[in-house]
């Protein structure tokens, strides 16, 4: 376990950014997923000791961040969301300075900066001013500054912001490599489902400061009940739904195009579906098992949250 939050509330004046969040994050690649303003960045900043929670307890790398924030920051690499750079410095100087500020001696910092710039693919541009870099290169420099002091844990806040499709793929490959090959624990904060799904094995879903769900991707996308997508030619849709319910289908939801989403219990035989369609006077055109995507999970959790409020 690298991070644990218990009933953490973070407020900026009257605005509550995070509301009693509790979760435990394992080592490996973890995604903080939520829309803009969900409270992801606030949690990262609180874990770095930059923002004081108004209540609750936190632990990061077995340290309470409020007690010794500088020690925490020494062991954590943070790639901020905001597009910031140190004016007047080139790529190499930026990364080397970040290393020295994190506590590396000068010679180590310089050597390490060259290595990291090579690793992230900026070796050719390292002596150019960062102010003249493209957005993708600046994102890479930010990743380099987060990585240069060999942290145990990496916080990446919206690392694919402003990147073109190719740059996005490159960045995600790098992040995946950090978590896999290099054995770093990575917390990836993003509002892009595909990014998180591609890199992370464990996900925390957040919305309006609340944690909606947390678990592995497999756990979150696993259906409690089996579901099927059914397409039918002909027949009476009303009779079809009635026949399906009669034959043990828990829920049958037709859409505007005549397709029906079926939810059934484990052990349900699809032969009953064919029989029900025959009873309604139609013909089965397509019957496939439906697997929930992360998007379904997220939208479902948001719907549940809004219904519960």
């Amino acid at each position, binding site marked *: 376990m690298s991070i644990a939050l218990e009933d953490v509330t973070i407020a*900026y004046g009257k605005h509550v950014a995070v509301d009693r969040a509790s979760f435990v994050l394992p080592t490996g690649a973890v995604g903080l997923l939520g829309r803009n303003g969900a409270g992801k960045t606030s949690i990262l900043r609180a874990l770095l000791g930059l923002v004081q929670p108004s209540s609750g307890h936190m632990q990061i790398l077995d340290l309470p961040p409020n007690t010794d924030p500088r020690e925490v*920051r020494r062991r954590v690499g943070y790639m901020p969301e905001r597009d910031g750079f140190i004016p007047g410095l080139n790529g190499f100087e930026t990364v080397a300075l970040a290393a020295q500020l994190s506590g590396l001696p000068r010679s180590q910092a310089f050597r*390490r900066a060259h290595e990291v710039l090579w690793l992230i693919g900026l070796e050719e541009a390292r002596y150019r001013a960062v102010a003249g870099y493209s957005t993708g290169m600046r994102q890479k420099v930010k990743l380099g500054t987060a990585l240069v002091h060999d942290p145990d844990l990496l916080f990446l806040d919206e690392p694919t912001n402003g990147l073109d499709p190719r740059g996005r793929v490159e960045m995600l490959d790098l992040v995946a490599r950090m978590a896999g090959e290099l054995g770093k624990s990575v917390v990836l904060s993003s509002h892009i489902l595909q990014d998180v799904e591609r890199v992370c094995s464990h996900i925390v879903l957040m919305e309006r400061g609340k944690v909606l769900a947390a678990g592995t991707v497999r756990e979150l996308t696993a259906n409690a009940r089996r579901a099927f997508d059914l397409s039918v030619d002909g027949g009476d849709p009303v009779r079809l739904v009635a026949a399906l319910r009669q034959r043990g289908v828990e829920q049958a939801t037709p859409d505007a195009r005549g397709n029906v989403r079926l939810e059934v219990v484990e052990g349900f035989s699809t032969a009953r579906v064919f029989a029900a369609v025959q009873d309604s006077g139609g013909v089965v055109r397509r019957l496939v098992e439906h697997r929930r995507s992360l998007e379904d999970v997220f939208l479902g959790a948001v719907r549940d949250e809004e219904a519960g409020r």
Partner: protein
Amino acid sequence: MAIFDRGYRDLIYQPTRVFARIWPIARHELAAMFRIRFGSIVFLACLLPTIGQLIFLLMRAGIWEAAPSGRAGGRMSFGDRMDPSTASFYLWPITTMSFVPFLVLTTLVSVRAIAKDRAAGALEIYWTRAISPWSYFLGKWYGSFLLLACAFFAAPLVLWITSVLLAPDWSQFETTIGFMPGLLLGLAWMCAMLSLLAVGVSALASTPNLAAILWLFLIMGSMFLSEILRRLLRETWMLAINPWFAGKRVVDQLAGITPFNDYSAWTALAWISTLAVVVLLLARRRLRVLEAVAT
């Protein structure tokens, strides 16, 4: 694993002490002036008064003999300014001639130090490292102090060493050693306080241009105000309202010079210290971590 395989090397190191983390910030601040050719030219231009004095010293080297006794005290006269055995010779290029160079150096570097980082969104990068906002401020101030000290402390020191080496015997050294430590201490103090004020003002502003305007307003505005109040109230100590004049008065006192507009050096010291405390208190508020990250 070799780096050319795009590998990754685990790092084992003992974290450095706080000063080792502050020094890189100071070094970059000091180097900011010399990153472009224009900055180096401006810096050399700022040294012109001292360079002029050095040339004068070299020209006199062949014919000049040091006076038997140094005249540290007394009012600064034109004769003293040209006499290497007096404190005025070393101070005149700085406290009298270098107001504009001071304004140029502080406006181009010191007062932009923190404001440019704030405008570029760099504060979050600094403060998510293993340093505190005060360490960051200290680094910026130290770099700025070193820059001013190069122009206004090291230059007269070089001038003095040259005068001692050019003299035919030790008499120049014996004549000047009485006031030189006080003079150098005063100049170092002046550089430290003025750079502290400039970096403090820089911490208050959100953009470098705003910081420069604030700084020029503080220095030039207080200069006009002090002159007007001095004439209206006929009180010479009103000059201390201007940080440059106040600093100059303290340096004169430490060097043993009685200035033309004489007033208590304690007044100048108290005023510049109060100003520094006020600026630091305001800067402290603006440098809170939350202010930089929670926008």
